[in-house]
């Protein structure tokens, strides 16, 4: 275990790894700052390029991107009241008010510092729990792994969207789409319709590029949203904000723990974590009257939570292949493309890679904080990029990624088709991540189903862990439906 931990750190501390992680951080800063583009778009664009990299460097690139986005997205949130990504929406409330009072620098100092602290706490949590998870995961067989995959799929479907029934149905649709092509066990042609391209199945990168990449930029371009032209001077007070983070150390620690817990629960993610962090800050403060009017605690709470969330989300992703958040769905896609299967194999044959990821999260959060502190005054200009310039550039990047898959036109057609489908789903409020997760898990579910049925017949349904996981799945589904009902959704 110690050897793997040190090996993981040594993979991180090479020039190529650090360079790629730094590149990922700058990409993440760009996508975090520009309002309207989610962090998922950044990961989607990078996805086709990771196949030609070593797994460690590819994943460090991903970590550089996703660790920094929750740090950088506060830049427009504080300065112009527009969150860079959805996870900064809670920070807008008090952060923007602080900027209006001439305390933007103090807000930035606090946000960056607690982002780094939260991210490191999340990474330390991951490092501490890996030794505990390993024996647990090793005791699971194919029936349990099958049930865990189905649990992840149903949880994401129920919790991550506003329409649980449709979320579950889209998960099932994803499973079907993932079956297109030749069945590896029996050689049956499934829904290939005699088309050579479909014989190999749909390309995962193309599907993800379309569903998330094209759909997101289409939404931004069609709305024609304009970023506010109003920019105020950042002012002094960066160091004051840093001191605030330590002055309110209890809040920082508590919010970080909240973020970790939210991250562990599949399908939720940093958006919810940041709001819970804000609510925690407001509820636990003795003097609440300044919240919403520029209270630095209203910045500390959400920012600590949304950065620590990643460490929590990585735990079920790496241990069981159950994504802790929407970004983790893309991590699973990257693992699949790199030939790495999360779960027992990950924690045995690739344990050093797991530790590389954990160390990478910690380092990326610290470096991201420092970069943002130094470059804020320049980075704010990115908030003013007009959509009419941004949209075609991002589309070009997406198409570049599509053409990288196999240098063939059918992949481009797949991207466009799924882009249209993804846009329709986004407009309808249907959770696209359920579809993508079903697609990614489809071969895994198929394999475990085949092994389970052939090895155990029907007796696998009586195994204790299978029953326990099934009950947890049902409980989460019932909770999800009830929660939608109480929230006044159109359906339970």
């Amino acid at each position, binding site marked *: 275990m110690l050897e793997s931990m040190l090996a993981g750190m040594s993979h991180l501390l090479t020039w190529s790894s650090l360079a790629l992680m730094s590149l990922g951080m700058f990409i993440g800063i760009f996508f975090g700052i520009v309002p309207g583009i989610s962090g998922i778009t950044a990961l989607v664009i990078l996805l086709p390029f990771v196949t030609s990299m070593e797994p460690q460097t590819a994943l460090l690139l991903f970590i550089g991107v996703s660790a920094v986005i929750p740090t950088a997205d506060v830049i427009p949130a504080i300065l112009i009241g527009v969150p860079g990504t959805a996870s900064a929406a809670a920070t807008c409330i008090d952060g923007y008010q602080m900027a209006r009072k001439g305390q933007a620098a103090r807000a930035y100092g606090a946000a960056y510092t607690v982002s780094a602290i939260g991210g490191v706490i999340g990474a330390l949590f991951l490092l501490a729990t890996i030794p505990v998870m390993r024996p647990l995961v090793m005791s699971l067989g194919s029936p349990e792994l099958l049930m865990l995959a189905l649990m992840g799929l149903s949880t994401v479907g129920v919790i991550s969207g*506003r*329409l649980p*029934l*449709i979320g*579950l*149905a889209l998960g*099932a*649709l994803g*499973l*079907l789409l993932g*079956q297109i092509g030749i*069945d590896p*066990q*029996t050689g*049956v042609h*499934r*829904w290939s319709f005699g088309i050579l391209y479909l014989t190999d199945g749909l390309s995962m990168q193309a599907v993800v590029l379309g569903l998330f990449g*094209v759909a997101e930029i*289409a939404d931004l*371009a*069609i709305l*024609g949203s304009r970023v506010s032209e109003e920019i105020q001077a950042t002012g002094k007070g960066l160091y004051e904000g840093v001191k605030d983070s330590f002055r309110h150390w209890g809040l920082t620690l508590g919010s970080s723990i909240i973020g970790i817990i939210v991250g562990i629960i599949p399908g939720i993610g940093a958006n919810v974590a940041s709001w819970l962090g804000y609510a925690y800050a407001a509820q636990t403060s003795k003097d609440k009257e300044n919240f919403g009017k520029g209270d630095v605690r209203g910045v500390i709470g959400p920012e600590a939570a949304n950065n620590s969330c990643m460490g929590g989300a990585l735990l079920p992703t790496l241990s069981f292949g159950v994504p802790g958040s929407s970004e983790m769905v893309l991590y699973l896609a990257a693992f699949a493309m790199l030939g790495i299967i999360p779960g027992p194999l990950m924690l045995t044959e690739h344990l050093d890679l797991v530790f590389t990821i954990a160390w990478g999260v910690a380092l990326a959060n610290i470096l991201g904080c420092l970069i943002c502190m130094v470059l804020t005054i320049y980075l704010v200009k990115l908030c003013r990029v*007009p959509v*009419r*310039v941004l*949209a*075609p*550039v991002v*589309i*070009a990047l997406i*198409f*570049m990624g599509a*053409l*990288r898959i196999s*240098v*063939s*036109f059918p992949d*481009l*057609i797949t991207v*466009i088709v799924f*882009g*249209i489908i993804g*846009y*329709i789903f986004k*407009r*309808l*409020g*249907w959770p696209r991540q359920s579809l993508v997760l079903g697609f990614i898990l489809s071969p895994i*579910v*198929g394999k475990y*189903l*085949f092994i389970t*049925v052939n090895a155990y017949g029907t007796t696998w349904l009586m195994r204790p862990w299978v029953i326990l996981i099934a009950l947890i799945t049902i409980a989460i589904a019932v909770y999800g439906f009830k929660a939608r009902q109480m929230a006044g*959704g*159109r*359906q339970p």
Partner: protein
Amino acid sequence: MIAVVALVAVFCFAIASSRSWAMGPRLYAWSASILGLGLTSIFLIRQIQAAQKKGDITTTEGGMIVKRKVGTEIQFFVWIVAFAAAIWLFGFEFSVFLFILSYVRLHHGSWLLSAGTGISMALIIWGIFTKLLNFTWISGLVPRWMGF
């Protein structure tokens, strides 16, 4: 409503078309399809019931307000398809320049902004990805006709 009906149709098609498969793949396909069909059908029935209560069949889908400029949406995806067609005709690098130039210009950008962005992006792709990283792209129909 149309999207939900389409989803129901997809699941029905999946069930019908996998009847002749071997046991293993058929079990998997039917498990997912029947589950999906059941869930979507329940959702559809609830939507119809909700619409009938409100007395308006043209109800919103998933609680989202459907009103948006459909023309703008179609226009955007026409741009996407046109870009793909340009790639097929002229190759990727030149099409990037052409797409960005025309998109920005026709969305009220100045000639300087549109040409500058287009040229910059094309140069970045050519310089970094084509020359430095040796990526290969689809060669367009027109360059092939011209013997390049």
